[in-house]
């Protein structure tokens, strides 16, 4: 028997569309495991850790999201035999059940914020010191001090943005996960939102953005709830 690769857990009876292909061209099928249906494909070996495999993994999870809210499995969880996968799931069954219930009927939306009034370096206070060549110990310490002050300002700016966003979204965001922002983003945050409230979420983020013209605010998603599926 070939190895097996899992993509997501869904409620029992939620089956993949016919002919859906997985990370290695295996056909995706639903496997009932102790109260779940797990979307898997038979794969003789672990997937190559490359961009194409990652995108294929996501495509299967997104296909599941069209039928029900899936609990996404992290990339790379290949098992050498179906019994190994079943054993892994059984070991964490209570946690997985709770997590699947928690995301049911919900979707993940994200907000990224770029720009801002205070650049990371060379701001008014730092002047040219941050970019000046370090010629002696005093200059080196001054540079460190300015960089530290700059990081504190950025952090305060991020916190203010997050607070503003929370106030704008109110109870619409059921849960929040703050992600490390990938440059040039200042803030990257994911929210778990009822599926029916996606339009309202976008409206509220737009309102939040209107009051902050110095920033570029962008909504990402909807995503399968990756950020809220890590028990």
């Amino acid at each position, binding site marked *: 028997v070939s190895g097996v690769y*899992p993509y997501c*857990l869904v409620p029992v009876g939620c089956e993949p569309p016919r002919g859906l292909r997985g990370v290695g061209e295996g056909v995706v099928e639903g496997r009932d495991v102790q109260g779940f249906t797990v979307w898997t494909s038979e794969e003789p070996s*672990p*997937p190559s*850790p*490359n*961009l*194409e495999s*990652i*995108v294929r*993994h*996501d*495509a299967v*999870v997104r296909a599941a999201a069209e039928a029900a809210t899936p*609990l*996404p*499995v*992290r*990339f*790379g*969880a*290949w*098992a050498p035999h179906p019994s190994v*996968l079943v054993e*892994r*799931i059984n070991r*964490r069954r209570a*946690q*997985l059940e*709770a*997590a699947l219930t*928690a*995301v049911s009927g919900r979707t993940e939306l*994200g907000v*990224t914020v770029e720009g801002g009034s205070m650049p990371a370096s060379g701001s008014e206070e730092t002047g040219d010191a941050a970019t000046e060549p370090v010629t002696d110990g005093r200059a080196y310490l001054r540079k460190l001090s300015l960089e530290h002050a700059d990081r504190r300002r950025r*952090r305060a700016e*991020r*916190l203010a943005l*997050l*607070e503003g966003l*929370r106030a704008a979204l109110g109870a619409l*965001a059921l*849960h*929040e*996960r*703050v*992600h*490390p*922002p*990938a440059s040039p983003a200042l803030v*990257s945050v994911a929210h*778990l939102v009822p599926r029916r409230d996606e339009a309202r979420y976008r409206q509220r983020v737009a309102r939040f953005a209107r009051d902050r013209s110095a920033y570029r605010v962008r909504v*990402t998603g909807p*995503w399968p709830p*990756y*950020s*809220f*599926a*890590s*028990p």
Partner: protein
Amino acid sequence: LPDVVEGVPSTSLVELVNRVVDRGVSLSGDLTISVAEVDLLHIGLRLVLRSVADEEADAAAIPGTVLARRIGEGV
């Protein structure tokens, strides 16, 4: 980039990779990163990897609010 990601903006691609690789349920597993059929790095996915930036970002969340609670905690 491979065909399957044509037309995907690069910023969205970064967010996609972050989510698929770093989030989601960890059901164990192993990956071996190879170059030219030489195994260079074996990764045991039983470990939960967290970057310093990740820790800092979580710390930036204002404590004491319902919003800052993550589903992963306590389940």
